[in-house]
Each structure stands twice: as C-alpha cells, then as structure tokens.
C-alpha cells in the first residue's frame, strides 16, 4: 500500500502542474499566417480580449463582415489599405494606422493559423 500511494500522489501533482507548464497565449488570441510569412512579414496576432473590451462582437463579425473562422476570412493587406476589415478602424482615426506593421505582425516565425490560448480549460468550472 505504501508503495502505491506514492506514485498516485505524484500523478495528481503532475496533473495539477500540466496547466502551469502549458499556459501559453491568451485565450482566443488568433494567429493569421496563411499569407504573412510567405509574403515576407511576421505572422499576425489578433487579441480578441483587447478588441472585445472596446467593441461588441457584431461590429467586426457583421458590420465589417469578418468570418468567424480563422484562416477562412480571405483578408489580404490590400483590403486593409482600401479601408475594409481591420482597415475600417486601423486608419489613424479610430485606431492606429496600418503603417505600424510590427504591432500586428508580431508573431514568432512558423506559427500556424488558428485560434490559440485556452489556459484553464482543463476541467469543469465552479458554476
């Protein structure tokens, strides 16, 4: 019995540590890299948390027509320059202008397009 109790306790501790070790991007961060690196710039990181503090969901997903599926929006830089999608706000008026390339193209090399984050999603919550 003594021998068996040790490893099982350690397993519990290890399980508790897993979320700590794999706490990565902020929940709902979106990485866009279908074209970025191929075009010679760093991947885009879109932080949902930052934008939802300031705008309701439907502003981007209805008014601006940004599809709710990472990698399926078909957005290209020319669209932004023409004032569509992100370019509707990032025009130097509502938000900083798109000539601040590094602020969006801020990802590490080799990132894959998708919705990232998800710390503390490893089990049922308290509600």
């Amino acid at each position, binding site marked *: 019995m003594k021998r068996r109790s040790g490893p099982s306790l350690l397993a519990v501790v290890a399980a508790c540590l897993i979320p700590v070790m794999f706490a*990565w991007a902020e929940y709902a961060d979106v990485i866009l890299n279908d074209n970025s690196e191929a075009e010679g710039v*760093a991947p885009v990181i879109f932080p949902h*948390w930052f934008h939802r503090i300031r705008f309701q969901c439907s502003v981007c997903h*209805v008014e601006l027509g940004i599809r709710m599926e990472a990698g399926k929006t078909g957005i290209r830089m020319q669209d932004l320059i023409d004032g569509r999608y992100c370019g509707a706000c990032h025009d130097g008026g509502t938000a900083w202008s798109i000539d601040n390339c590094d602020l969006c193209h801020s990802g590490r090399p080799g990132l894959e397009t998708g919705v990232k984050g998800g710390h503390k999603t490893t089990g049922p*919550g308290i509600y």
Partner: protein
Amino acid sequence: MANRYPIILLSISLLAAASAGLAADKWKPLKKDGIHDPSNPAINVLQEPADALSILQVDTAGNMVDWARTLDYGFIEPRGSIDGEYRPEVLETTVLMRNTMPMRYVRFPHKTHTQWMSCETCHDSIFIAEEHANPINMGKILQGEYCGICHGAVAFPLTECDRCHNTDSSTVGREVRDPERDEGS
C-alpha cells in the same frame, strides 16, 4: 504510515507552488506567451493582458474574466458599431432546450448574448430563428459548430458544462420568468 508524510508534504507544497504559479501566470506577459516574438520592438507598445484584464470581473476559465458580468456592471462599454452610434436591441427572451439526454436542460439567455451582438450575428447563418429547426447536439458543438463557434474559442469554454446545462427539468413550468420556447429536436 510515517514514510508517507514526506510525500504528502511534498505534494502539498508542490500544489501550493502550482497554484501560486497559476496565479502568477494568470495572464502571461506578451514576451513570454509563446506566440509573440520577444525581439519585435513593437511588443513594448502593445497593451499587456494583465493590465487590462486584472481590473475586470474575475472568472475561472477562458480569459479569467467574467465578460458577461463585466459588461453588466458597466466596467466596459464596448461600442455597438464602429462610430458608436448604433447599439443592438437587447432581447429578454430565453430558449429552453430539452433534448439534453441525462444532462440538465439548457436555458439559453438571449439577453446575455444580445448585449454583445446583434441578431444577425447568429440568425440565420448559424441558428435558424424557428422552433425545432436546429439539429444541435453536443458532438457538433465540440467540433466547433453552433454554440461551439464561439464557446471554446472566444466565449467561455465547453468545460463549463453547468453554465449552459443550467435548468432542472422539475423546475420547468413553475417559473414566472421570461417567455420560453422549446427549441431543438
């Protein structure tokens, strides 16, 4: 028995360290979040998640922010349109989904959702606004369809079962709350 105490003590201290680590890592600095390039000079300009999120209503999952309460209590006032002139109508009705197998019924609050988005965000591209018209099931949701388009990606994650499965079947019909509709077949 005595041999077990060091292991128990070690476990407790490790658990304490783990929870301390969780608290410290609640919102990772951008430089350490594993996706931002630390050598990018712009990283010092971007707002840090902890700066913005730590002053909002606390939650136990997702962004660790209870976004619904944060909005309800007026901590934030997100615009309903780019120019801020338009605000979607808030709908008070709820939708009761009873085909939930052994789980409790799902009562969907239109209010919480319309505080965040306009009707056309969901209707009819994701949900047909009609009773029994949406063949929703948990498998599809887990694969990112229906509720799963947002929940598990940006809204609270699908591990929070009870937040949706929130209604005991024995209480249904005895409430004098919002109008109900039974949807899903």
